């Protein structure tokens, strides 16, 4: 089947405005009479607030009001419901907002925050989640039982556990007894920031009539409205959330941001619009980041490589608020088995409060964490068993149509082709073929593999919808709420609409503003779900619109509906292309020569609702958590400097079974983008804390992001198209997946070649240098000899 738009490398629809600097972001917006807010944040990690004196701040010319938490003691949140707008009586981390200054200018607000005097009564602080789990540990959330949490989670009041996820399948103890090799390993990951270009910023206008208008740099409109409505008690239709162009999200702008707070500030400031813009510093100390992570794993294998038993305990260092991270903890838990069939498995995943920066989703949502553990275990087992890492994977891979995942879900027949993913990966990296020797003999070259699988981590009832509206010239307004923060989903969705109606792509428009009032509902654009869920809704809306068009055309052309087709913007009778009506003569209603008219403006509507997903059993974690699984793999060939610990990726291969590539250009960009982000997080990114809980590198001069010089020299991207029959054109999601395999592939390359275990991220030069010295002093010694050996004896005159 050949398509005009689907499968074609069409440039992103918003690219032109973005590269010309004319796209409008929330950051660019100013409203008449707008005020500026600035947060006063805590300087201590854990304390009761004894007193807040705002009198000096109010003396700054231009300051309108200073708001403190006690005045508006709301609890807000998506899943755990544990967040306050401003600290109510206790601060829980260094950077916790305790007050907000509202002023006529940003300068005045920034001057005034230094003059808000807060008196703290310090409490002992907990920075280590393992300490937080001790029975006598101080409670960070003393009133956890009062929080309104989603039914999918199990907070444990009286502890620091925000969610306990448990999964039991088979008999893991018996599994270990029947294994020939049992490994026990530990893994760790540091906190990282999303580092999107546009900092979090919000404008809220709480009108006198009770309507709340929000403009925000966020991923999705629906959860902002939903959480604000539930926690502030405002009817949904009185909250209008608008999102224009967004400068990146990566999960860090999912759920709710500062919108509820800024709305309250607008009300407090006499119903004038208020804008809050975070600084990059605040992105690193006050906004939520990705959690710290620890894993304690035990794995049993049979002699032939069969993965027989797996028991793993994940501890997520969620920081002061775990609102979204409880779901990350759940996703880490139920993705523990990756793409392997493991008959006996026990998982405990604890999302734990500490007195550190709050945490949230970040591209991959727990899957990078679970795969960091599992994919290294596979290689370590392979080495012990003397089996090739690609062979042990081949042996244990799930079989769609037969295998069950660790949640007991039977993989559908059309879930993808993991064996083909593996084979393509192995072929493209030249697995088994030794690398060339590096020119410098104190370096080594090595290859490593990692497979991965991911589906969206969403509630079972997360719906989507689409409205498609024709204009007089048969152009289309597609009203969708699909988040548009750089992924390319919207372009792909527009291609589908143009394809289905046989219209030029220019005839399809999606407005750049997402709007709860005007866009059709979608739960969220997260978890790589947008193309799949919103695409299905759009296809149904197209079908609905076509049905309306054919109904009218059938009367006019005096021909049964099923004999009609849409080609090049015309309704034609099949086999008699000269019997036709142009679309523009139908989409506003058809008018006969005498003026009689039938039909009317065409509006198509469609929905997506997953019917087979479930909550997971609270004791066993069994159920169907997701709507699709995308299989993929990453392979790298790298060069390691044994003297400095530097890792240089020479070649990276990404293979994904996407079902159908709707836009090869944008898929390639997603793949490259994921590899870049994956490389950055694998090798360098890390939020560092000192003993007071202060973030010591809250800026891009000391928090390093990869530069062009740090990137793989060569990237190979290959896509397999095993259609998922209920997906749009057979497609599955991709957005997050391309970074999941990078870290384990790098670590595996090094382990396979020289046996050095790298257990923690990031694998920065100093960490790798230490690991090399501790685990392979012989190699380091040899490398040093080679490095310090001069070619010739040169004599000089002295």
């Amino acid at each position, binding site marked *: 089947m050949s398509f005009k738009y689907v499968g074609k490398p069409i440039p992103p629809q918003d690219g032109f405005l973005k590269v010309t600097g004319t796209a409008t972001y929330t950051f660019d917006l100013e409203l008449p009479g707008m005020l500026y807010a*600035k*947060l*006063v*944040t*805590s*300087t201590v990690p854990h304390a009761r607030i004894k007193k807040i004196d705002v009198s000096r701040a109010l003396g700054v010319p231009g300051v309108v009001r200073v708001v403190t938490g006690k005045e508006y003691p709301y609890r807000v949140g998506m899943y755990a419901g544990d967040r306050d707008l401003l600290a109510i009586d206790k601060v829980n981390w*260094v*950077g916790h907002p305790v007050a907000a200054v509202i002023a006529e200018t*940003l*300068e005045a607000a*920034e001057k005034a*925050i*230094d003059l*808000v*005097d*807060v008196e703290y009564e310090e409490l002992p602080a907990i920075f280590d989640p393992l300490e937080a789990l001790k029975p006598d540990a101080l409670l960070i959330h003393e009133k956890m039982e009062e929080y309104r949490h989603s039914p999918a989670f199990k907070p444990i009041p009286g502890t620091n556990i925000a969610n306990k996820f448990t999964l039991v399948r088979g008999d893991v103890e018996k599994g270990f007894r029947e294994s020939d090799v049992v490994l026990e390993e530990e893994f760790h990951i540091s906190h990282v920031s999303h580092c999107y270009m546009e900092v979090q910023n919000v404008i809220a206008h709480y009108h006198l009539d009770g309507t709340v208008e929000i403009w925000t740099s966020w991923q999705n409109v629906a959860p902002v409205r939903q959480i604000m409505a539930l926690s502030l008690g405002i009817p949904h239709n009185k909250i209008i959330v608008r999102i224009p162009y967004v400068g990146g999200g990566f999960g860090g702008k999912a759920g709710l941001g500062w919108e509820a707070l800024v709305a309250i500030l607008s009300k407090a400031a006499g119903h004038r619009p208020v804008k809050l*813009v*975070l*600084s990059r*510093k*605040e992105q690193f*100390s*006050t906004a939520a980041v990705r959690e710290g992570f620890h894993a304690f794993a035990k794995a049993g294998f049979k002699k032939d490589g069969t993965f027989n038993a797996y028991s793993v305990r994940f501890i997520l260092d969620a920081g002061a608020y775990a609102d979204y991270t409880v779901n990350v903890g759940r996703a880490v838990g139920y993705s523990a088995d990756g793409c392997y069939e493991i008959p006996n498995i026990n998982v405990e995943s604890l999302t734990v409060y500490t007195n550190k920066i709050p945490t949230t989703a970040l591209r991959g949502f727990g899957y990078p964490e679970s795969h960091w553990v599992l994919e290294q275990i596979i290689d370590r087992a392979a080495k012990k068993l003397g089996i090739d890492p690609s062979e042990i994977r081949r042996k244990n891979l799930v079989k769609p149509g037969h295998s069950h995942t660790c949640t007991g879900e039977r993989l559908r027949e059309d879930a993808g082709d993991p064996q083909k993913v593996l084979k393509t990966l192995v072929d493209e990296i030249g697995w088994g073929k030794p690398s060339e020797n590096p020119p410098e003999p104190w370096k080594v070259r090595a290859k490593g593999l990692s497979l991965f699988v991911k589906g969206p981590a969403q509630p079972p009832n997360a719906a989507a919808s689409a409205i498609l509206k024709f204009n007089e010239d048969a152009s289309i307004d597609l009203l969708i709420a699909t988040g548009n923060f750089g992924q390319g989903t919207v372009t792909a969705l527009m291609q589908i609409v143009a394809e289905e109606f046989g219209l030029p792509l220019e005839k399809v428009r999606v407005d750049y503003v997402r709007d709860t009032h005007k866009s059709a509902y979608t739960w969220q654009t997260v978890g790589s779900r947008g193309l799949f869920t919103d695409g299905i809704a759009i296809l149904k809306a197209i079908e609905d619109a076509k049905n309306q068009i054919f109904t009218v055309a059938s009367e006019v052309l005096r021909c049964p509906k099923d004999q009609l087709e849409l080609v090049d913007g015309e309704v034609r009778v099949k086999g008699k292309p000269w019997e036709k009506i142009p679309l523009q003569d139908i989409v506003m209603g058809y008018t006969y020569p005498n003026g009689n008219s039938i039909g009317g403006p065409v509006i198509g509507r469609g929905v997506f609702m997953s019917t087979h997903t479930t909550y997971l059993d609270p004791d066993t974690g069994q159920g169907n958590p997701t709507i699709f699984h995308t299989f993929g793999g990453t392979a790298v060939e790298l060069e390691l400097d044994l*003297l*400095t610990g*530097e890792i240089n990726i020479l070649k990276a291969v990404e293979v994904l079974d996407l079902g159908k590539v709707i836009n090869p250009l944008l898929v390639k960009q997603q793949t490259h983008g994921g590899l870049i982000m994956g490389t950055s997080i694998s*090798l*360098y990114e890390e939020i*560092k804390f000192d003993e007071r809980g*202060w*973030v*010591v*590198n*809250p800026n*891009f*001069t*000391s928090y*390093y992001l990869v530069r062009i010089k*740090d990137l793989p020299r060569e990237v190979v991207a290959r896509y397999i198209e095993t259609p998922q029959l209920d997906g749009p054109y057979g497609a599955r999601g991709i957005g997050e997946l391309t970074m999941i395999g990078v870290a384990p592939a790098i670590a595996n390359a090094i382990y396979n070649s020289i046996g050095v275990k790298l257990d923690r991220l*990031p694998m*920065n*030069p*100093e960490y790798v*240098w*230490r690991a090399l010295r501790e685990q392979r002093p012989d190699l380091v010694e040899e490398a040093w000899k080679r*490095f*310090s050996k*001069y*070619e*010739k*004896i*040169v*004599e*000089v*005159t*002295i």
Partner: protein
Amino acid sequence: MSFGAPYLTLPEFTYHKPKSLKEALQLLNEFRDEAKVMAGGVGLIAFMKERLLAPNHVIDIKDIPELKIIEYRKGEGLKIGATVTMSEIEKHDIVREKYVALHQAVKAGSDPIIKNRATLVGNICEAIPWVDGPVPLIAYNAELEIMSVDNVRRMPVSEFIKGPVEISLEPNEIVTSVYLPDLPPEAKSLFMKFNTGSEFALATLAAYVNDSKKPRDARLVYGAVSTKPVRAYEAEKIILTNKNISEAVILAAEKASKEIDVISDVLATEDYRRHLVKLLTINVLSRIFEVG
């Protein structure tokens, strides 16, 4: 009080843009501690945004013609004015051919956009321990020309930088130029930095040797390892007193990594830095003496 310095705006100040050095010096003499001199502004504006500095007056010296000069005179050396940008230095033929360590430091210093604004003199005056600019200058025994309304003085860069963000400059003084002595044709210099996974270097080395066949003069200056650039005098001695230079390079590297002051900070530990010092020394000296 809030955590960190979360500001998006600058503190208020009066902006001055004098057209002559005399006018600039008079303004500075008038406002003294209340004023800061701005060349490229790369350091100053960042410091102001962080509220580490909040001058009431900013004196922008970019419009002063005599400070824009970069000029080489045989027998005298190279003069680089206070507002000459890193890009201009990088493109200068004499710098590239003769002052190789400086050229390499500037080239590796930052991205092109910053180099179009940043100045070498500004880089010295910031005195942030991690910056690259001062390191080769100390290796060349470069001096600064410092002026006030009633005085002109010269001072070696090595003495001018006293510690982190601490320099020998009176409130009414402007650093007008840096002077690099002319180099004998046989002199060799190289700069190298280690900054993998870090915006700032974890360690740098600028080495100057005159000459590689008959070493009489050797200077090894390490940057980004301590609170200010440090010299390895004992290691230099090894270079000057060993006939077998191939071996001396290794010995000097071992010595340098032990003798100099090295600190731990957010970027790296002392251990790792000492190790990098050793590697940098071998890398740089092996190239200078062509020991392979």
